[in-house]
């Protein structure tokens, strides 16, 4: 039971991290706000910044204009944190005493170079730290979790599972 709980939590964490990477690091706060269900009011219109004809607010309902200072018009956008709410602490497995003779599983996020990292790191773990076996499985792509089959295999065969996040 303890193993199953932790094995499920890791891919869930990974999925959330990937989503937030895409939103916060690439798409910007407007898209992050939209992802969180910010209301899109039909009567509101996107505002453009003064002198800037390339940027538009993507969440019309969250845009207001402050014209309190004469001649100074500034758009305001309400930005929501993508961090989400805290969840209750879940049970975590005790740490491994060492790596000797253990089977280490990697869930590859398919980001560029992660497969190479796994190959090199797996070789080092075997040759330098006594790991008995390395299992390398890939997800379909970075934006989805590992399949139930991969999770079941990891839970059945591995002593430790390592996954990845980031570029």
């Amino acid at each position, binding site marked *: 039971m303890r193993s199953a709980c932790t*094995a499920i939590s890791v891919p869930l*964490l*990974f999925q959330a991290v990937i989503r937030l990477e895409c939103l916060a690091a690439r798409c910007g706060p407007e898209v992050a706000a939209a992802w969180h269900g910010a209301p899109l009011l039909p009567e509101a219109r996107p505002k453009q910044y003064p002198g800037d004809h390339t940027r538009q607010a993507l969440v019309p309902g969250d845009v207001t204009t402050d014209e309190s200072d004469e001649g100074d018009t500034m758009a305001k956008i309400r930005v929501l944190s993508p961090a989400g709410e805290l969840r209750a602490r*879940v049970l*975590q497995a005790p740490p491994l005493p060492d790596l000797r003779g253990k089977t280490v599983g990697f869930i590859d996020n398919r980001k560029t*170079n992660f497969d190479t990292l796994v190959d*090199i790191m797996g070789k080092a773990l075997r040759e330098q730290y006594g790991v008995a076996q390395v299992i390398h499985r890939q997800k379909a792509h970075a934006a989805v979790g590992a399949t139930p089959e991969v999770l079941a295999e990891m839970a059945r065969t591995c002593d430790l599972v390592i*996954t990845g996040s*980031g570029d």
Partner: protein
Amino acid sequence: MPAALVTTTAFRTLADNERQAKGVPDLPLLMIDHPLGGEKIEGVTARAAQAAQALVDAIAAPARPAPPPRA
């Protein structure tokens, strides 16, 4: 099952927030230099060594107190 997460330095804060949000604040992070993508083999090799050492360090770290039982 013991688990760990490889992440790059640029995503440290995000990883910390997600560990907290998912209820696994002690999930070991194997930090490597950012970026990983786009690096040549020498750079990937250096990051693999970082991750392996971080894993060994995490295993060698003193055990934390057991978390309270779930309600």
